[in-house]
């Protein structure tokens, strides 16, 4: 039974991807891309990695979709671009590449266990139970830190391109129909609640900093869609603190652990430190994502700082 389901998911993924590439209309491509994101999160659940499913759904489908839709709005609405010119000469090498990679995949050893035993062995001496969060925040904390750095740089980059110091003041016109406003007024508290719960759950069950942050970001963006300045309300300094708190927490941890125990990014015994870092990461992920969505449409700038 599982086999049929896997086949179905795999084929639909490939089919949607092919349709995205093949479609002439940009809007259609974006919509298809959102469905592609949802199917992908379906695949993640099938492969028993729930937190990735949540992240994919919220980011891959949600935020990316918003960004693309917003970008499409800004573009000169050229009705239909000419038939996508996939040059035939390109088709043939792509086929070869795909087949070579497929053959290579066959050689993956059957009893491939990867790092599972090592992680489980080391789980005992970290204060986190759930392996994924442990890997993320403890074993490979350096990766997470750099990844927060990437997020931060993306925000700085967008600021640089828009030549703005902060995102305060960007507002969208309020949606006309009352239904939209009412849905947002109900959904917002629920999403914030779920975000918090996911964050708290992360320590011992699938969830954690990323998922919480992403859900909170979705809430913020929804608020912004409703015409509310959401994060734009914050004064510039507060906004910066929220933006930097994740990256800064890791930095402080690094400095402290370097000078205290000589081993950078080694978490101290009591659990509080890791949770603190986790919460800060969530907040900064949410803020960064919201700022990315808010900052990119440059046209209705009210004033520059």
């Amino acid at each position, binding site marked *: 039974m599982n086999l049929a389901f896997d086949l179905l998911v795999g084929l639909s993924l490939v089919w949607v991807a092919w349709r995205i590439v093949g479609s002439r209309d940009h809007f259609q491509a974006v919509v298809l891309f959102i469905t592609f994101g949802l199917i992908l999160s379906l695949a993640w659940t099938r492969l028993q990695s729930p937190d990735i499913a949540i992240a994919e759904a919220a980011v891959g489908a949600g935020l990316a979709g918003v960004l693309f839709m917003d970008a499409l709005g800004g573009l000169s609405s050229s009705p239909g671009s000419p038939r996508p010119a996939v040059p035939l000469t390109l088709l043939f090498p792509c086929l070869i590449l795909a087949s070579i990679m497929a053959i290579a995949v066959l050689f993956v050893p059957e009893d491939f266990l990867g790092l599972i035993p090592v992680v489980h062995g080391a789980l005992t001496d970290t204060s986190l139970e759930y392996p994924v969060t442990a890997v993320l925040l403890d074993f490979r904390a350096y990766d997470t830190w750099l990844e927060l750095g990437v997020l931060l*740089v993306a925000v700085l980059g967008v600021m*640089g391109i828009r030549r703005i110091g902060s995102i305060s003041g960007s507002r969208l016109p309020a949606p006309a129909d009352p239904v939209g406003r009412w849905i947002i007024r109900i959904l917002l508290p629920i999403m914030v609640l779920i975000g918090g719960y996911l964050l708290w759950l992360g320590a011992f069950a699938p969830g954690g900093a990323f998922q919480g942050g992403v859900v909170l970001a979705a809430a913020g963006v929804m608020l912004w869609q409703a015409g509310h300045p959401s994060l734009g309300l914050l004064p510039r300094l507060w906004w910066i603190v929220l933006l930097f708190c994740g990256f800064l927490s890791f*930095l402080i941890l690094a400095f402290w652990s370097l000078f205290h125990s000589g081993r950078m990014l080694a978490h101290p015994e009591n659990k509080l430190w890791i949770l603190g870092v986790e919460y800060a990461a969530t907040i900064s992920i949410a803020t960064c994502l919201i700022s990315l969505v808010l900052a990119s449409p440059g046209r209705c700038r009210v004033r520059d700082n």
Partner: protein
Amino acid sequence: MPELLVLIPFTAALLCFILKGVLRSLAALLGASLTFSASALLAADVYQNGAIRISLGGWDAPLGIGLSADGLSVIFLLLTAIVGLMVSIYCVPFFSGLHEQPLARHFWSLWMFLWGSLNSLFLVSDVFNAYVVLELVSISAAALAALSGTAASLRAALRYFLTAMAGSMAFLLGVGFIYAQAGTLDMFLVGSSGGDGPLMAMALGLMTVGLIMKSALFPFHFWLPPAHGEAKAPVSAILSALVMKGSFFLLLRIWFNVFQDSSLTVHAASVLGFLGLFAVIWGSYQAIIQSRLKLIIAYSSIGQMGYLFLLFPLVLTTVDAAWKIEAWTACVFQAVSHGLAKASLFLAAGNLIQASGTDNLRSMRNIAGSLPMTTFTLALAGISLMGLPPSGGFVAKWMLLQSILASGQWWLAAAPILGGLLTAGYIFKILSQAFVPGAEGACCKPVCFVMEKAALVLAIFSILIGFRAEEVIFLLTDRICAANPGGFWP
């Protein structure tokens, strides 16, 4: 303490974003000098008592991420430190000018982030970590390139960013394949576990092409000239002197640490060799027929990068270990002296553009009279690029030709010879302008004293390293940490 090299720039980046005006420049300069001294200390430490391997967060290799500072990475770190410090000193007056003021905040934070990510790239010893750092480098570099705000620069930055992302995706897939085969992510563990299966071959293919895309080797060089040509002078100096070297360093790590013992790399090396040869000739030729100064220098970067890729066929085919060291030293010297010379060339070009207002070569008429210091810098940097005797470039060309002749692959000799001639072609195309009597009316705005001195110091450095070859050879031979004790030289 290699970790400091990563921490200090990041803290400086945050500070620069928050602070304003003079405070910001102070923070930036402080950050730059601290990083410089940290990398100098690290270099001394490695020179004295060998390569350093640390595992972050206390978790050892298969699980946690490690940092490794050996001879090779220390040399590149020093290069980044020197160029970084000089560029920072150059940028303080550059960005305090009226025109550039709004960009200062973004420039300094992005530049510090880039410096920190470059330092971490040179210390990398985990494959996935390499991907994340590579991504961080690409985004900050693209953001810096897009700072000048003109349509052309934005376009160039986006083209650069898209190619970088495609490259990173291929790299990540390669990481996946390695993980599928070796089950671990640490470079040295993968290297020691060996494995010549199709998975590793696929991984090698993907990762190499990903990194070639990012270091602008011949077929994938199209994004570089507009990106470096349109960016601001200090930014293009950083891009072509350091960022290109970053992805090349990673390629070295992969080919000589991850695939250290595997026989996969023998045949593939000649492909890289030929591409390098074409890059040298194509880049230098293109540089001759350009008429805009920064484009000439940008295309010359493509040409000079070609020399580095000659390393692969030379090291992997010769049998005699002595000539391998020769080839290694040649490649490292070429990277370092090119980095220094290219940075000083771009900074000098920046001075010229600021003085004469236009980037066109004809605007450089009779600069010998008005900007003698800049002409002298251009001359010194040119000498180092051309590989004329007193310079580091000469040492590189000398050892390169020697190892080529010793390795018997005489067709590669075309690169240093023909390349050298073509390089002389465009260098003297620039220098001869200095002697052309300029139009009387050409107004020449005064260029800040500090900016000229920064470019000059870099040029002098690129000449001086020519004399200190022993230390570099020592670093490359005895201070290399390799997957298994057999070390670099199988």
